[in-house]
């Protein structure tokens, strides 16, 4: 890889980040996302970084691309005219959701509309049972009649989701065959391929989402390939998927729903690569931007993955207010806490922060653009974390008086002055993020105390130090390139594809031959996808089964070695499950049968080898450029903080907290309880000072 010239591109909501890597050198830029034709921003950014690096476009050997376009199309409902074909009696599954209200106390609650209106959902007489046996056979003539009915209606894409199709896909396949034959040009997505998982609402919704964005993404990816070729960049293009790996452009066009959340997945891969460089096996990645914060657990240098997540939340980021997508995904929590998050005092005289955000217009009060309500950034300014004259490299002048006025107003009902209100605001938002991290850790059976935090994103370095104090995390790394972390992460991701199946098997009824065959078939399928990306690289497979006590509803993932997968033995499975269950919930349940519900095989090339970290030279004192009053929430008072320019730090330079390490994009706050040292790769390494 060393001689390759590779390009990572992340299309975000506001900016398109482009990173070019030439050997060990990195060149990056941010250009505004061009919604009408997103490929234009890529081309522009590519020209910029290539000219910085002095290489021609045709010298680029590989482009890795991730994008929020798929997510945004779902959020903004900009997908294609799509139909759903489902089992008779189940026309409204995607509309009836869970039949519950995600906010219990709001009498005027409205639920999000389904992706497809009811008149675009059609049914066929057919049925499988819960063992995958046919209860009602599907009549091909009925399918043909439906295809004739659909033909003049102008659908660009059709989703097919049948009850229990994850166990037996014969009927879905037949429907697809008929549609392909009778409606050429219409794209078809079937649930047994898109998301072969039990639970009809999640599976149907995922399939519909895939169908809904498929024409858009397919056309975009086709255009992108063409535009790049016109510009002379004829190298292969790969796509980052939500599970943290890379797939071919063709696979991405077939299963575009797998691109949802690819940007944040890149951020997690970025953090995982830093973790590898530092040899860290327990890492919490913390990404905080303008409106949200994302937190992810990275164990053994691999981000935690999950099988289902929720996109397009419509109600204060509340769980349940979006729609479920069940695909392999990097498991992270996202909460409405960012620099722009606004604060208010509620009826209980408690300060609440977010998820409402000031955005960039009008922005926090201190931007002086008409915002009058206090945002997290206002608190950060009043607490002394930000320099009003040097925000965003001095390009935005911050107005301290506006922040103070807004904070005074916030604090008035609590008898708090602006500084105390800022303290309260910052503590509440930091506590919200800490709670999200704690809950996420507990759900994964982890204790954060021996974890290291890796922080990136514009607002993270301002809050990460305090978060570490709250979580008892002793070490914090703030790497360089944090502003374009996701795009760098794309360049570190392996080629990978995860195949999953829902097949129920009790350990009391364990069939080793069936298991071996199943896992082998899945390995072949997943490996096949990866082979389309790279014909020669060694591919290894990661085997995972989801197990539970028979009768439970939630499975826990159990990793198997290749040997355990290919020589399956129920005693081993039981021992692995019980150990994991005990770690998660404190005790096992005696005498209960155990079952496997979902099988997963992830075929992957090796992750990028992290650049070895050279030894840090002898410690030296950092050059201090000034001093500023900084409120330290752990002490509950103002302290004199040294101000240090990040650019001036040489490897080995030490900064004792309280201190502020400033750079154009952000400021790293080093609390009084911590001390920072600059590493040879530019990372700022912040650790707890033994008191």
């Amino acid at each position, binding site marked *: 890889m060393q001689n390759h010239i590779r390009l990572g591109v992340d299309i975000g909501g506001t900016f398109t980040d482009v990173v070019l890597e030439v050997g060990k050198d990195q060149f990056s830029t941010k250009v505004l996302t061009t919604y009408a034709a997103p490929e234009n921003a890529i081309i522009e950014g590519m020209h910029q970084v290539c000219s910085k690096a002095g290489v021609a476009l045709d010298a680029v050997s590989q482009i890795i691309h991730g994008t929020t376009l798929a997510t945004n199309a779902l959020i903004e409902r900009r997908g294609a005219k799509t139909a759903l074909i489902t089992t008779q009696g*189940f026309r*409204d599954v995607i509309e*009836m959701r869970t039949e*519950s209200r995600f906010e219990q106390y709001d009498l005027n609650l409205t639920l999000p509309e389904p992706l497809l209106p009811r008149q675009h959902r059609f049914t066929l007489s057919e049925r499988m049972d819960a063992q995958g046996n046919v209860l009602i056979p599907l009549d091909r003539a009925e399918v043909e009649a439906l295809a004739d009915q659909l033909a*003049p209606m102008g659908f660009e894409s059709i989703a097919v989701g049948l009850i229990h199709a994850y166990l037996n896909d014969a009927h879905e396949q037949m429907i697809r065959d008929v549609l392909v034959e009778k409606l050429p040009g219409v794209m078809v997505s079937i649930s047994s391929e898109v998301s072969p998982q039990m639970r009809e609402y999640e599976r149907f919704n995922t399939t519909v989402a895939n169908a809904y964005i498929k024409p858009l993404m397919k056309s975009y990816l086709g255009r992108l390939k063409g535009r790049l070729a016109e510009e002379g960049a004829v190298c292969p293009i790969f796509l980052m998927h939500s599970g943290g790996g890379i797939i071919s452009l063709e696979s991405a066009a077939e299963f575009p729903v797998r691109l949802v959340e690819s940007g944040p997945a890149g951020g997690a891969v970025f953090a995982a690569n830093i973790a590898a460089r530092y040899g860290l096996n327990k890492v919490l990645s913390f990404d905080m931007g303008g409106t949200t914060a994302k937190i992810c657990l990275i164990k053994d240098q691999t981000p935690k993955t999950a099988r289902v997540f929720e996109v397009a939340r419509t109600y204060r980021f509340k769980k349940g207010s979006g729609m479920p997508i069940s695909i392999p995904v990097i498991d992270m929590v996202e909460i409405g806490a960012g620099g722009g998050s606004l604060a208010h005092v509620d009826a209980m005289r408690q300060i609440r922060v977010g998820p409402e955000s000031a955005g960039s217009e009008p922005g926090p009060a201190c931007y002086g653009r008409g915002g009058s309500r206090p945002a997290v950034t206002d608190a950060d300014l009043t607490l002394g974390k930000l320099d009003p004259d040097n925000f965003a490299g001095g390009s935005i002048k911050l107005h301290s008086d506006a922040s103070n006025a807004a904070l005074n107003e916030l604090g008035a009902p609590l008898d708090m002055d602006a500084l105390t209100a800022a303290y309260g605001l910052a503590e*509440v938002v930091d506590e919200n993020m800490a709670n999200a991290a*704690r809950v996420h850790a507990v759900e994964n059976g982890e204790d954060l105390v021996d974890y290291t935090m890796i922080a990136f994103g514009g607002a993270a370095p301002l809050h990460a130090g305090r978060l570490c104090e709250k979580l008892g995390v002793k070490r914090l790394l703030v790497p360089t390139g944090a502003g374009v972390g996701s795009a760098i992460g794309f360049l570190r991701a392996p080629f990978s594809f995860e195949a999953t199946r829902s097949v129920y098997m009790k350990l009391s009824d364990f069939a080793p031959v069936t298991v071996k065959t199943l896992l082998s078939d899945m390995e072949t399928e997943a490996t096949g996808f990866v082979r389309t990306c790279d014909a020669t690289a060694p591919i290894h497979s990661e085997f995972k089964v989801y197990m539970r006590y028979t*009768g439970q509803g939630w499975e826990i993932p159990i990793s198997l070695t290749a040997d355990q997968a290919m020589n399956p033995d129920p005693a081993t499975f039981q021992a692995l499950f019980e150990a994991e269950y005990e770690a998660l*919930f404190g005790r096992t349940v005696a*005498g209960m049968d155990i079952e496997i519900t979902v099988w997963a095989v992830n075929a992957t090339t090796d992750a990028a080898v992290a650049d070895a970290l050279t030894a840090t030279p002898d410690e030296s004192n950092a050059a201090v450029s000034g001093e500023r009053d900084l409120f330290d929430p752990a002490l509950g008072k103002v302290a004199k903080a040294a101000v240090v320019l990040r650019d001036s730090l040489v490897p080995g330079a030490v900064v004792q907290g309280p201190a502020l390490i400033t750079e154009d994009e952000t400021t790293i706050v080093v609390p009084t309880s911590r001390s920072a040292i600059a590493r040879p790769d530019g990372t700022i390494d912040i650790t707890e000072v033994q008191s």
Partner: protein
Amino acid sequence: MSNVAYQVMWNRLISIVEEQAQALVRTAFSTSVREAGDLSAGVYNAEGQMLAQAVTGTPGHVNAMADAVAHFIRRIGRENIFEGDVYITNDPWEGTGHLHDVTVVTPSFHNGNHVGFFACTAHVVDIGGRGFGADAASVYEEGIYIPIMKFVERGTVDETLIRIVRGNVREPDQLVGDMYALATCNEIGQRRLAEMMDEFDLSDLGGIGDFILDNSRRATLERIAGLPQASADGGMTIDGFDAPIDLRVKLTIEKDRMICDFAGTSGLDKKGINVPLVYTKAYACYALKCAIAPEIPNNAASLAPFEVTAPVNSIVNAVHPAPVALRHIIGHMIPDTVYDALDKILPATVPAEGAGCLCNFQVSLRPAPGHNGTRSEVLTFNSGGAGARPTVDGLNATAFPSGVMTMPIEATEHTGPVIIWRKELRPDSGGAGQYRGGLGQYMEVGATDGHEFDFSAMFDRVDHPARGRQGGASGAPTTIARDDGTPMQGKGKQFVADGTRVVLGLPGGAGYGPATARDPELVKRDLIRGYISAASAIKDYGFDPQTVTDILETVARGETA
């Protein structure tokens, strides 16, 4: 302690109880808990006052949970509370209203001192007796009764209790698994609390408890003080088991409290649909909180200003040994009753009547004579339509006041030889109005070949559909029959033979305001989507037949978005 520190701790306690509830969902065995979210969890100070409660699917547990710990303290005795203890009960009157709710309380110790309690409750699928249904004549027939007692003492599980429980229920593994899950979730809460107390160097929960309770009390009283001081009567008649039931309430708003008195309500029913007062309190209180103080979290102080009274042995204040298994049917109707009164004091605030109670049923499957097969108990939760609101339509097939989730039918079919043949919206079931009532749903339930079953129905609104408000029309009533046309009752256990299905029409919510005032664009949308039929567009909303025909043709041509 600074105000800021207390704010942080309050946030933390709420996070801890949510975590506690989440742990229960992940470890529970009963589908009612793990799929539907029928559970609750809370943290208490050493006096037994509730400081925080997880927001889960069940308002019915709200006050019951707030009161429960005091009963445990009284029954166990303070002198018998030890570190490592876990207590349990399913007492309907000292727990949460029926034997199927198992409540587990764990005293919380920090540095050797007793500082508080964690409690949680879950609805289990089977507790023995006649099985979950309305058929019992007294609580003795409804299942095994576990008085408030120690499940674990100083870390040692009471194996005698486990054996007795195992011997008395149909799904012993599931129930015992759930008992452990309840204990585990309290343990997780306890662990987090200890960490918080270490971090803030607390020796007890006195300071933070006062902070929470003082602020909650003040916020609630401010809301009540802002209401008109007035009194109004409300009422609703529903099916009952054999005879219709009148629910009557007098709502009085004073400057510092709100009182619901259910005098005038019908007496006890012979069958198990009676309601312990604690459950009535929960739903009355929930209804009022939604209307006037939705964002104030539940705790001892925020609940205190809501007072609920009812004559002893009225159906909403059943005492031992009345049968109470299906107390949710009447309980879920309490909010609509209270809203009938509140609407007279605070107009344009509350919704029209909705389906009210969850449309649940339990299926007891067994092999038909001469066949081999499996026996299984399958419980499902389903919802009719919610009532229209003053400015927006009612929610389709969505529970109110309960907040539990339905189970995926694919998950349900994995629990036994049951087949759900249909589960989809029921057009024309939402009451017409300026704002339309939410649609109910159709369901069809059968068994795999060679199985027969008892169908335990738990429906209301067969004879008393949801009534509209301000000129809105009623929602559609519940319908129930076998697919061979033989009728069935809305409540009670009924036999269904091999090869026969139960066909259900779950009720719709009522409309708000006159149908003539409905925005024609919304009528058109409803027609396009098939929420209403052509006939309804013409009859209820005054569309002319040609317009309706034209609209339906655009649908057939695929010209509608």
